[in-house]
């Protein structure tokens, strides 16, 4: 490989899976037509889209007619959540911004935030209380947290929601982990598993009381006129490959992340490693170094040749610190998230780990500490 850049931001976007690349190119030539028309190219496009749906359904272990394609993971979240319930919404304090945006946009009332513990795990009693208060008929809890990796207790949440419906954002976990058994609607994002950008997947269970929440009712079961057929096929191919490989990849990534957690704690003074050590996503970790500017840390790592994300206020568009870190009481400044791609090596991780203590020490010295 000529490009030696160490890309550790798979949780934002995993590089295109090799299994998806050829499919994407072939489908771009074949899948251009509008599948709703009656001519032959339209039928070809329709067949490709149905093929993509079938592959996704099989990879996730659901029925074909439970799979909808959307134009992004964000759109899958909006469509899935807003199609459930009609009264109040309760969501965990550590949901993705897309869930909060949808809840606010819906103008439903009340919108209740469910507290989490110090490891970002939602408090099941808070779910019970929110539903018992009477006006909440949809609860949103993610499968796994996108910043700190915490797996949510979805089975317990599912029994706590009672008569209310459950929306599950599986954006960080779809493909990497088995689809949760719980959830009336479950959303995922292809570029998080190595599919192309611009493809979301929404699973709506047959038993769910869900309806299309946007204009165009007649499109509700034809993906809102979704037209990115090459993207859907490539996303499906990547998902199939990721599911087939996940036992091996997850074990390798889990071990590398454990190594990061241990070495960061041991070698950098005054560092807060967030989230649980075990019940977590295999491929990511977040930590914060006291007295360090998050942007400076990301920039220093970029100069070293490593790309990471940060939840610190100074790195965000809104200048607000990460809600996830804030909700769990973790330090919000000096924060970086490392997330591994399927082919991140131990050498890649060690190169970053070897450099980190010196980088943090220098930044602290610059700050006068």
């Amino acid at each position, binding site marked *: 490989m000529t490009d030696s850049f160490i890309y550790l931001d798979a949780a934002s976007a995993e590089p295109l899976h090799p299994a998806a690349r050829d499919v994407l190119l072939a489908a771009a030539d074949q899948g251009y037509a509008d599948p709703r028309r009656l001519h032959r190219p339209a039928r070809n496009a329709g067949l490709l889209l149905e093929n993509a749906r079938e592959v996704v359904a099989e990879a996730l272990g659901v029925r074909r007619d439970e799979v909808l394609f959307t134009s992004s993971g964000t759109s899958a979240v909006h469509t899935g959540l807003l199609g459930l319930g009609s009264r109040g919404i309760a969501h965990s304090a550590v949901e993705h911004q897309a869930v909060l945006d949808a809840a606010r946009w819906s103008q439903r009332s009340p919108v209740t935030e469910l507290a989490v513990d110090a490891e970002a795990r939602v408090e099941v009693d808070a779910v019970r209380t929110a539903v018992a208060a009477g006006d909440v008929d949809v609860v949103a809890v993610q499968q796994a947290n996108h910043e700190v990796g915490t797996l949510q207790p979805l089975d317990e949440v599912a029994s706590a929601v009672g008569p209310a419906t459950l929306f599950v954002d599986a954006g960080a976990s779809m493909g990497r982990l088995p689809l949760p058994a719980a959830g009336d609607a479950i959303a995922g994002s292809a570029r998080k598993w190595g599919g192309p950008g611009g493809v979301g997947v929404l699973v709506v269970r047959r038993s769910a009381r869900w309806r299309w929440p946007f204009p165009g009712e007649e499109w509700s079961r034809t993906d809102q006129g979704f037209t990115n057929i090459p993207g859907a096929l490539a996303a499906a191919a990547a998902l199939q490959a990721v599911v087939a490989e996940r036992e091996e990849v997850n074990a390798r990534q889990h071990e590398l992340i454990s190594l990061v957690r241990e070495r960061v704690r041991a070698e950098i003074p005054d560092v807060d490693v967030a989230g649980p050590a075990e019940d977590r996503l295999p491929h990511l970790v977040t930590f914060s170094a006291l*007295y360090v*500017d998050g942007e400076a840390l990301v920039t220093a790592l970029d100069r070293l040749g490593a790309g990471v994300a940060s939840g*610190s206020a*100074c790195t965000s568009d809104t200048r607000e610190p990460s809600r996830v870190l804030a909700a769990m*009481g973790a330090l*919000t400044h000096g924060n970086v998230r490392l997330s591994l791609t399927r082919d991140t090596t131990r050498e890649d991780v060690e190169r970053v780990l070897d450099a980190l203590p010196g980088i943090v020490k220098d930044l602290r010295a610059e*700050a006068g500490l």
Partner: protein
Amino acid sequence: MTGPVVTLDCRGQACPRPIIELGRHLGDVEVGEVIAVAADDVAAHHDVPAWARMRGQEFVGEVEAEDGVPVYRIRRLS
């Protein structure tokens, strides 16, 4: 409650500057005494308690200055 012996004015400073000042000036108060920091940066609301937890100091609470800026109080324990 005994008031702060030292109050750092970190108005207008972005994160992590108020926490850096806190780290630099903790030694200005004796063990058992309270140091305070006035900071309008939103991250300070989360990071002052996190700093106290990480450094083994006691986060006493948050009050509002006359100009509405939050003032965070920490008791030095070590």
